[in-house]
């Protein structure tokens, strides 16, 4: 199809699709007028049943915990997939950029920048830890905390140069964190089976509502997800960063 033909065809198709979506949306209950009995029931019982105050985390990690299990593997698969796609191929090499002025030593990062980066990174780490540990109480949990922790690590990189990152980035540890986090979800699920109940049944002591350590497996799953997401996101970003910084075509 030529561009013009495609645009005309799309205009017709999109108009028909708009009418279709309109017909569907028109059948929805008016905005803000209805909440399902299922949701009302869960809002009511989740607190007493699971000793958590954030019902969303109870649904995510307990009532519908299997969804989240597979969601974690979507992330794991995406990280593995991105590592595969962005791996250095046979016609590429990894090398640091050539020094434009080899006689001049690379200045070490200035102490002020370094200090700022460390401070900011510690702050992010604190926010991340707070987010993951309060998952059962307030909005936020393993996923959000993982991304915040990952960005904390990246802020440290901002305060230094890529040569240092290249040397000190703990690849094995990050991969292990990604894998253990995902495997941890499965293992916590197996606790239910070991206790003679169904997979992912919340069999750990529920604690007191309002405490940080409450909700049984919900808190544990938050932690393991945080571990996986933090490792996964650092790997993910570092694959893209590697492409920009160190992977280049082999000269022929």
């Amino acid at each position, binding site marked *: 199809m030529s561009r013009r033909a495609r645009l005309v065809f799309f205009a017709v198709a999109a108009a028909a699709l708009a009418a279709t979506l309109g017909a569907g949306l028109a059948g929805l209950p008016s905005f803000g007028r209805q909440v399902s009995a299922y949701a009302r029931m869960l809002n009511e019982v989740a607190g007493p049943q699971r000793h958590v105050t954030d019902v969303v985390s109870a649904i995510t990690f307990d009532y519908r915990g299997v969804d989240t299990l597979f969601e974690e593997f*979507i992330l794991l698969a995406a990280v593995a997939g991105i590592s595969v*796609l962005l791996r250095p191929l046979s016609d590429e090499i990894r090398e640091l950029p050539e020094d434009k002025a080899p006689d001049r030593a690379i200045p070490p990062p200035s102490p002020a920048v370094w200090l700022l980066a460390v401070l900011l990174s510690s702050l992010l780490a604190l926010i991340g830890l707070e987010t993951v540990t309060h998952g059962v109480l307030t909005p936020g949990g393993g996923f959000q905390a993982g991304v915040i922790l990952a960005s904390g690590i990246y802020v440290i990189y901002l305060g230094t140069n890529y040569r240092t990152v290249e040397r000190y980035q703990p690849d094995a540890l990050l991969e292990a964190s990604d894998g253990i986090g*995902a495997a941890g979800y499965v293992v916590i699920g197996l606790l239910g089976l070991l206790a003679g109940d169904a*997979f992912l049944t919340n069999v750990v002591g529920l604690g007191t509502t309002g405490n940080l350590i409450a909700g049984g497996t919900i808190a544990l799953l938050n932690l393991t997800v945080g571990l996986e997401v933090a490792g996964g996101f650092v790997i993910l970003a570092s694959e893209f960063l590697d492409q920009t910084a160190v992977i280049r075509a082999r000269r022929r």
Partner: protein
Amino acid sequence: MTGVNPFISTSAVIPASVVVPLAAAALMAGFSRFLPRRARDLIAIAVALATTTLTLILMAASAGHPMIYWFSGWRPAGGMVIGIDYAVGPLGAGMASLAGVLASAALVYCWRYFDSARGRHHTLVLIFLAASVDFCLTGDLFNLFVAFELVAVTAFALTAYNAGHPAPLQGAINFAVTNSLGGMCVLMGVGFLYARTGTLNLAQIGQALAGHHADGLVVVAFALLAGGFLVKAAVVPFHFWLPDAYGSAPIPVCVLFAGVMSELGLFAVIRIWDTVFSGLAGGPGPRMRAVLLGLGILTALVGAVMALAQVHLKRMLAFVTMSHLGIYLIGAGLLTPLGLAGASLLVIGDGLAKSALFLGVGVVQHQRASVSETKLRGRGRGLAVTGVTITLGALVLADLPPYVSAAGHGLLVDAADRAGLPWLEIVIALCVVSSSAAVLRAAGRIWLGWGPGESPGPQAGTADDPGEESQDEPDTAGTNGGGQETREPPSRPERIPLTMVLPPLALLAIGLGLGLTSGVEEHAAAAAAAFSDRTAYAAAVLGGHGASVPAADRIAVPPTSAGRVLTDLGQVLAALLVAAIALDRRAARLRRALAAATGWLRRLHSGLVGDQVTWLAAGLALLAALGAAALH
């Protein structure tokens, strides 16, 4: 059955069938750098085989007795579903075990020669397998969406595995963009149904909709769900991504795609029809049958015509797959247990045969560095076993008895007769013969050196000729990711490793064995009947009376008659004849005329993602219009 309730003894098997591959994948992702290569291969194969065994156990245990498993221990209370369930029946478990068999075969085939990028390839294959199992077993609509996305994410990455070549990358982009949009449609459909019924459980949604007349919301929810899943199933006009992705993915990945992934899309469409929409008031069945049959026939014909037009062997098999998907949709779209049973046996038989063909093509590619039928002309000498494999596979595509496909074909034709649509047999035969003839033509050219060597038609720009070859050979720099060691030169062993030659033969043997097993048709019919029974399904999931309705056993299966066998043999002969004509020098003008007549169809397959998304939008609107006509 021995009288022991299979639910008790096998209940832990149900979660194990996804937990085993998931746990292995996670550990391999985390620690593969500490494992030697052979250990990675062995672990992956062992886990795939274990998953296959678990799903086979489930298939046997759930026969005549659906097994319901409530995750997190949340059973329905007060008439309300709380958690997520697996509703295991023999059809779903059988589909899952087919995924396991093909994943095992693909992994064995990878042994030694395939660079697995430090095990990440195996991680992705195992996650793909777990997601497929989840897809087949789940009883929850949103969980179905999550499985859809998980299958998709692994598949996008696997398609572009040979990231050093443009074709796989572009195929993956087309695939990823269209299928992501399909996923969004599915999710919007989920939202619509939740807004109407207040639940995400398939059985409970079906119960809430049963007896009601469909309004705009229900129709659009159907169109969005079915449309999203039909993108994955590559049904016209949602199919344009398929040849781009299957034609460029690595061979072991093609096996998973052609044998499992597209079929999952159809599986989902039939599952949501049977559990959710079939109970709508006004008897929508017959009209929906017309819609599904129309889509199926169109897909089968387009796939068959396009398959004959290809000289790129992987693209040819991609279109063969598409034609098959159309035939499965015809079978399932009859909306009778017998039709579904026929389609199921065809999925198994054709899936095994297509996988064998892909693996055979992989051997040729590995040894001769080409997948072009014309470039390979006469170069098959020394690859005799593979030649026999491919020829056998091609004959099986034409329903050579006693292979299991012949049984499926018989059931399907009988179902069409009973539905008063005997002419469907002719449509199916046409498509089957074309697909088979395309592959036989390639085999004749490659191994016998028959036919002209040049491209069959002068269609520059649309000639389905292979471009740059994307070899499945070691393509990762270094060996340990960070290292800068020079990689080993690609080894081209004189002897073909047995791990490449045997898996396709083993797959064909499985299909033959199933075909020779007595009672396979009855089992399929019983499984399909259990799958199609909405009220029995709902009763099993939600509890209540009628949980054990063995209506399944009462489906009469026609005996294999001599006429049936003769028809199948006739198809095989017709395929051989068409292949011979396609290779005959005297028929050059006929071929040119046909190529010219189908040029417009080949030009439609432009391989441009913008075109494909436009067709997707149009297809959705069309499906909604058809759905409105069928459901109202």
